[in-house]
């Protein structure tokens, strides 16, 4: 009896948990049906903004921020809804709610679907994009305050936010691809926002074309996937493309890749373009020509992370058919990421433009994420993506503040000593720098540590290189901080030359925040407030992936089925802290101890490194290499094809034309001139002649008519009688 009761009670417990789970799934389903609202609000805002007049600046900014706040609310609500999963113990399934619908029917039973998804990956990313985007929008109201195309700027920004959020919530590769191209378009429009600058319009083209090269691969991947699975839905209750990944892994693809691996690599080409991986990284630094909030939003936090997010979304394809946790596609990805991480970090050391340092740093950090994904660490990659979005957006906004504060100066050599002038910016920038350098307990430390850990278990060489990149990261960030915020203000030198000119100019200007004096100034509240909020996150976000609270919450949240390798934690962590500290120490010794005195002084590293430093400064001559090889080759192809066009094609065409002309000339002479014209002319002439002949009858003499009439009557009469009397 007692036993029976006990059994019944356990049964009741099970039933209650079952009911709870069912309720929860229904709730998630409901949330998934509302996912479309997240991109919808900014899209609507963009549509309205596109109709606004140039003077309606406040309306435009209000619409953008309002719409994104709504999106942010919906995204956070969805995020909240997905949290607290994991009833099934250690290795429970990821909770995933989807909502698919038919978008377009064609033929008898063909159709194109659209769909939205809600799972931890999407929810976390959407919340991050909406939130960071909102902060950047608020900051942009300050940064762009004096731009005359303010309205247009926010229209593009809203469109971008819509496309990016659409990409995140898409459960369908078609929708994903549309949004993917839309973010590329917005990136293009916003990089070239100041299109009157030749460098900006060149950069926008470069960004668009370079990412397009990757997108060809992506599109081929999408097509191959559709060809193989017959669906573009990612998840569709067992019929989705990703749910067939294991089946695809059985089919032979090409070379060492299975079909799944081939598709994965093709898709990864798209990510290489978007996420600026070597060798398609060249567009990202040039993209810094755009306004700084654009760099922060698109080229640091969201769009460049879209490639990494896409790989995370398609991860089943990458891991399908893994032998020992690794597939050729994953290995390829890991080495690309690893190389990019180190390569870009070295370039960042040699740059003088404050934004370009950050751009190369972004490349390098994206390399980290790709490397982590390639090592099989979905959690590590995505977590680094999230934390990096916060602190890199923070750094970019900080750089934007510095640029505004120093009256549009971007050269770090002409800054210095800003610590005194811009204390708030300095504090926030320090947080971002420490996070990026991987100093505990900032967010970057934890995420970078995870990345290094998964790489350590896959390949010691990649791990070593990545650790070296971590050292470089700490070093160039310290270099930047020292050059910008410490030492003495060097910007005056340039300004003194133009002092008179400037004063004359400013005399007549209404000046809001002291452009009149040449000293740097602190930024207004609407600019530093978002930066401060982001820096709070840059500090606390890391703790969600630590063993300190609840044993790596993020891991359990995103991918509970992923096996976390044991061991090595201590080695990796100690080394990572050590290289971070070493980097900061070296940076301080070289740049901080004896700060630059004048703007035209050479870099302290230039002398000992010699030619190497020039090499770094010129970005390893990659642009020049492309110029000399690919672009030259393309041009040569162009010339060759023109020659072919002119000689062969035009030759054939000209022959055909000549022949046609000859034939037509023949017909002209024989047919037209002789038969048609001749015949026609003769007919005309005879008509005219007969007319003339007949017109002589009508001579106007009534008596004549009368005579004819009489003769006619007489003839008729005679005929009548003849007939009467035959």
């Amino acid at each position, binding site marked *: 009896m007692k036993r029976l009761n006990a059994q019944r009670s356990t049964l009741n417990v099970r039933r209650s948990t079952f009911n709870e789970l069912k309720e929860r799934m229904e709730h998630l389903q409901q949330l998934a049906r509302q996912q479309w609202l997240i991109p919808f609000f900014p899209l609507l805002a963009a549509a309205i903004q596109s109709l606004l007049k140039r003077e309606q600046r406040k309306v435009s900014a209000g619409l953008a921020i309002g719409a994104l706040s709504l999106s942010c609310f919906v995204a956070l609500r969805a995020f909240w809804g997905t949290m607290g999963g994991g009833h099934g113990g250690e290795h429970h399934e990821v909770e995933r709610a989807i909502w698919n619908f038919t978008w377009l029917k064609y033929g008898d039973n063909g159709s194109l679907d659209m769909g939205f998804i809600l799972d931890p990956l999407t929810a976390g990313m959407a919340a991050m994009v909406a939130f960071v985007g909102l902060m950047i929008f608020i900051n942009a109201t300050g940064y762009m305050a004096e731009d005359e195309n303010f309205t247009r700027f926010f229209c593009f920004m809203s469109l971008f936010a819509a496309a990016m959020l659409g990409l995140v919530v898409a459960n369908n590769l078609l929708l994903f691809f549309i949004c993917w191209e839309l973010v590329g378009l917005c990136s293009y429009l916003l990089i070239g926002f100041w299109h009157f600058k030749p460098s900006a319009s060149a950069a926008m083209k470069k960004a668009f074309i370079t990412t397009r090269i990757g997108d060809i691969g992506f599109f081929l991947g999408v097509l191959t996937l559709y060809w193989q699975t017959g669906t573009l839905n990612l998840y569709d209750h067992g019929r989705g493309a990703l749910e067939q990944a294991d089946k695809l892994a059985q089919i032979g693809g090409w070379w060492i890749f299975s079909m799944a691996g081939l598709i994965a690599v093709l898709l990864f080409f798209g990510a290489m373009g978007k996420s600026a991986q070597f060798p398609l990284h060249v567009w990202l630094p040039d993209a810094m020509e755009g306004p700084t909030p654009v760099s922060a939003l698109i080229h640091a936090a969201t769009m460049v992370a879209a490639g990494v997010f896409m790989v995370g979304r398609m991860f089943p394809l990458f891991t399908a058919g893994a032998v020992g946790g690794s597939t050729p596609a994953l290995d390829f990805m890991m080495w690309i990421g690893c190389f990019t991480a180190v390569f870009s970090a070295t370039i960042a050391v040699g740059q003088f433009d404050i934004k370009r340092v950050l751009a190369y740093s972004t490349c390098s950090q994206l390399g980290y994420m790709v490397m982590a994904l390639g090592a099989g660490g979905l959690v590590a990659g995505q977590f680094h993506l999230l934390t990096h979005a916060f602190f890199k957006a923070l750094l970019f906004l900080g750089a934007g503040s510095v640029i505004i504060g120093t009256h549009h100066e971007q050269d770090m050599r002409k800054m210095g000593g800003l610590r005194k002038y811009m204390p708030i910016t300095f504090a926030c920038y320090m947080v971002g720098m420490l996070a990026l350098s991987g100093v505990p307990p900032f967010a970057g430390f934890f995420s970078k540590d995870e990345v290094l850990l998964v790489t350590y278990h896959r390949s010691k060489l990649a791990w070593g290189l990545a650790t070296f990149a971590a050292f470089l990261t700490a070093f160039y960030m310290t270099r930047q901080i020292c050059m910008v915020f410490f030492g003495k203000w060097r910007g005056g030198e340039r300004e003194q030359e133009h002092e008179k000119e400037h004063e004359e100019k400013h005399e007549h200007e209404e000046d809001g925040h002291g452009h009149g004096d040449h000293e740097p100034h602190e930024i207004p509240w609407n600019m530093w407030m978002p930066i401060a909020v982001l820096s709070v996150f840059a500090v606390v976000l890391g703790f969600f992936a630590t063993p300190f609270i609840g044993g790596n919450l993020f891991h359990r949240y995103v991918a509970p089925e992923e096996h976390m390798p044991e061991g090595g934690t201590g080695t990796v962590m100690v080394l990572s802290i050590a290289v971070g500290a070493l980097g900061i120490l070296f940076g301080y010794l070289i740049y901080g101890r004896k700060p630059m005195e004048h703007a035209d002084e050479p870099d302290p590293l230039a002398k000992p490194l010699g030619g190497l430093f020039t090499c770094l400064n010129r970005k390893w001559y990659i642009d020049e290499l492309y110029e000399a090889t690919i672009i030259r080759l393309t041009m040569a192809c162009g010339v060759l094809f023109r020659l072919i066009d002119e000689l062969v094609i035009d030759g054939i065409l000209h022959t055909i034309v000549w022949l046609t002309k000859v034939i037509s000339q023949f017909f002209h002479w024989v047919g037209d001139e002789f038969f048609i014209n001749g015949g026609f002319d003769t007919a005309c002439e005879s008509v005219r002649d007969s007319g003339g002949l007949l017109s002589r009858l009508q001579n*106007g003499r009534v008596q004549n008519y009368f005579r004819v009439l009489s003769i006619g009557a007489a003839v008729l009469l005679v005929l009548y009688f003849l007939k009467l009397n035959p």
Partner: protein
Amino acid sequence: MSIPLGHYLILSGILFAIGLCGALTRKNAIIVLIAIEVMFNAGILNLIAFWHYKQFAVLTAQMFAIFAISIAAAESAVGLALVIAIYRHYRSVDVEEMKSLKG
């Protein structure tokens, strides 16, 4: 004693021929008009002759003749008026000179 139909018809034919000759040959517009009147009357005489020998009981032909005579009178009045108008314009009534209807 009665005059046979043939005589009437021969008279009518002679009158018509005289009228036709006059209308075709004379140059004076007034003479041409007179000749046309003669032909008219030849026609009317013909009509009356046929009536007299074939349809004596009904008066239709007589009515026709009276109509024709009155209309001929109106027609000749109009014709004369036209001749006068032409004379005022050309200072001549020579039909050979009136060629403005030439095509």
